[in-house]
């Protein structure tokens, strides 16, 4: 029972459903309470304990069906696997026995537990009934195939899978290897040899047997393939996904293929959620609802210290005010995309953030994000602002005219740009004003530090007026920089 549960929960975790050990224990308790009789009841009950949001619920339901579908076909008593609690446990005892005894391939069919044993008896009865004249196969696998008892075959497949530990499958390229090994484990070699021997003989009955066995063997091969495929889907599919995600975090944003953009957006959201939960409790510690003794005494000094009026403590929420200015021209636009996406995913902890984009004219896009979905807003921004030639002169002049008055000591201004200004002078004087007026000024440059001030880049003229300068071109960079921002605000 525990083993099956552990496997199931492992599968869910692989699919990104976060399940803690405590929840696993709860699930076991719930399963005990509900019993294993009713599959739908169990499915609902475990769902309550294991999946804690809409998306996880869907994943859970899908994989519950997948996972226990397998249990049904692989169990000796077919669809009764979940209908009958004892049966499930029995099956597991068997499987644990099996995995411990690392027996020979030749023993497969005879040691496949009660179900297998019985079926073999049946098989002999049947074959003797069906055709007394027919020759029966001599190899164990051959006997099993001849009997064509689906339950016994399924059991043997499951057992061979366990012995070869198919659940450790990592890559889809391993699928044929595992299928091959499982076939061998089930005694394919012996069968092949038998087939050769049968082919060599001249008797019609034996050749007929060979043909029948061949087709059964092909069928079995197909079944094994399906089994491995299923195990791959259950255990390994998510691993590739994880691998891709970790790589995507590190790779340069400018180099990411459009194909992965969608996935990146998800990653940004994940990172934003992590940051939000890390920093959401940062408030200036003044408790509300408790008597503020100092203030109360002060307020009542006029009444000779008789306490008429009470004064209460209050909480001040300290949330940084952030202005993000993004250059959306050329190569910077890709990074800008993610910065905007990131900042707006952080709404929970940065509710007062404002965003501006420019190539030459600067425009505020805060409302756009409020009204539309993130992706739609981004698409609109890119189509509306991105196709102009860069002019920091014009952009900064716009900023100074419209927004500079709102910048105060509590504001953090983040500029994302490569400072490539098509040989204009760059109006660093405005940037100096911003620097003096704002609490902090961050400049993020997607180019590597070596290429700053080369060509038409005028990073040097802005450099004195920045509290911090960062090279920022991967999701990891973004996360680190914004994390620092939240920590120090």
């Amino acid at each position, binding site marked *: 029972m525990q083993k099956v549960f552990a496997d199931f929960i492992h599968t869910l975790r692989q699919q990104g459903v976060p399940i803690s050990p405590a929840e696993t224990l709860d699930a076991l308790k*719930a399963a005990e*309470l509900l019993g294993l009789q009713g599959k739908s009841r169990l499915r609902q009950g475990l769902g309550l304990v294991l*999946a804690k949001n809409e998306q996880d*619920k869907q994943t859970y339901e899908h994989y519950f069906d997948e996972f226990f579908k397998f249990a049904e076909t692989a169990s000796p008593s077919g669809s009764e696997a979940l209908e009958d609690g004892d049966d499930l446990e029995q099956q597991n005892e068997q499987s644990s026995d099996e995995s411990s005894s690392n027996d020979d391939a030749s023993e497969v069919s005879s040691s496949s537990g009660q179900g297998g044993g019985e079926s073999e008896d049946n098989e002999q009865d049947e074959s003797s009934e069906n055709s007394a004249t027919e020759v029966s196969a001599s190899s164990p696998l051959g006997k099993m195939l001849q009997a064509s008892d689906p339950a016994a075959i399924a059991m043997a497949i499951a057992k061979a899978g366990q012995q070869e530990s198919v659940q450790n499958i990592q890559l889809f390229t391993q699928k044929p290897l595992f299928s091959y090994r499982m076939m061998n484990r089930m005694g394919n070699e012996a069968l092949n040899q038998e087939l050769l021997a049968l082919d060599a003989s001249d008797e019609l009955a034996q050749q007929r047997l060979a043909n029948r066995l061949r087709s059964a063997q092909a069928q079995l091969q197909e079944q094994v393939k399906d089994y491995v495929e299923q195990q791959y889907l259950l255990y390994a599919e998510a691993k590739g996904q994880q691998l891709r995600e970790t790589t995507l975090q590190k790779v340069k944003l400018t180099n990411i293929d459009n194909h992965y953009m969608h996935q990146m957006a998800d990653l940004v959201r994940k990172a934003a959620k992590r940051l939000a939960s890390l920093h959401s409790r940062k408030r200036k510690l003044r408790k509300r609802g408790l008597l503020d003794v100092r203030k109360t005494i002060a307020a009542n000094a006029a009444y000779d210290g*008789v306490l008429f009026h*009470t004064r209460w403590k209050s909480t001040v929420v300290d949330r940084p005010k952030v202005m993000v200015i993004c250059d959306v021209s050329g190569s910077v636009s890709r990074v800008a995309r993610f910065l905007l996406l990131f900042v707006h995913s952080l709404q929970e902890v940065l509710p007062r953030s404002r965003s501006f984009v420019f190539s030459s004219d600067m425009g505020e896009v805060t409302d756009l994000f409020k009204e539309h979905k993130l992706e739609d807003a981004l698409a609109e921004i890119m189509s509306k602002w991105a196709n102009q030639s860069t002019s920091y002169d014009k952009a900064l002049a716009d900023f100074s005219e419209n927004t500079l008055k709102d910048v105060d000591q509590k504001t953090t201004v983040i500029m994302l740009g490569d400072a490539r200004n098509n040989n204009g002078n760059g109006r660093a004087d405005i940037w100096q004003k911003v620097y003096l007026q704002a609490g902090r000024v961050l400049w993020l440059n997607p180019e590597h530090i070596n290429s700053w001030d080369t060509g038409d880049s005028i990073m040097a003229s802005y450099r004195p007026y920045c509290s911090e300068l960062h090279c920022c071109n991967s999701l990891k960079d973004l996360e680190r920089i914004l994390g620092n921002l939240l920590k120090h605000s």
Partner: protein
Amino acid sequence: MIIKHADKIASPEVLQEAFEKRGYICSDSIATAVYLACHLQKPILVEGPPGVGKTELAKVTAEYLAAPLIRMQCYEGLDEAKALYEWKYGKQLLYTQVLKDQLGDVMRGARGLDESVERLHSFGDIFYSEQFLETRPLLQALREPDGAVLLIDEIDKSDQEFEAFLLELLSDYQVSIPEIGTVKAKSKPIVFLTSNNTRELGDALKRRCLHLHIPFPETALENQIIASQVPDMDGSLRDQLVDFVHELRQMALKKVPAISESIDWARALLLLNVDSLDEKWVRDTLSLLLKYQDDIEIVEPELRKIMTQINPK
């Protein structure tokens, strides 16, 4: 929670039936959730769109188990002083003033500050004792001798600090009050937390709860619910009504009508003696179902189409 009759929660089916008798028609998963909550002693976090009967579930459970329902509405800025306990500051101040003279008597004859303080100490913390403690819903629920049903409504509206504060209560059914010590539940309450998903709740909180999502009901279930809530309604009209509401839920509206709105509408139609839904009646009573003018403007031009869909004659 001490359940006086263990057979009341013998199985999810028993619960389902009992709730049905009390006019709360619930799906299998709801019954399973309540059953597990009673046996595993775990809080249930109920999520779902507004008006699907999240709060009602707590009420009907309390009624069925004959336990007091203690309700706490969450809002932004809710803190432990409002939720757990508070000292009766006014009473404390008043008493110190009244007892000023008494204090003089007690202190008489004491030599030096040390001795005075010593004497004061011997009286213990009079002003921070039970008499001056104002209990709030959470503490009340813990102190209920036979257990209670605690409903923490709209937890998503509260601050994250408060959510963190709830963790101790939800996992161990105890809270710490610095002046008094740890208060442990006399009998563990059954806790329902409801959320409309205005913000994502913390993983720590979710981990401690059973998570129940109540979606809009299927047509058949909603039909059943309305039948039990508005028993006088004609069956065919009810079918029409449920179909109509389901059509509305498919549309992109600001706020789609929930069960509570369908019930209100059913009551209204009954009151108006409507025996069959037609376009005129729907147009006149649409404001009962849709709470935004924008939504009404979206639906009105589509009315004829929807009506032909639900009356395919």
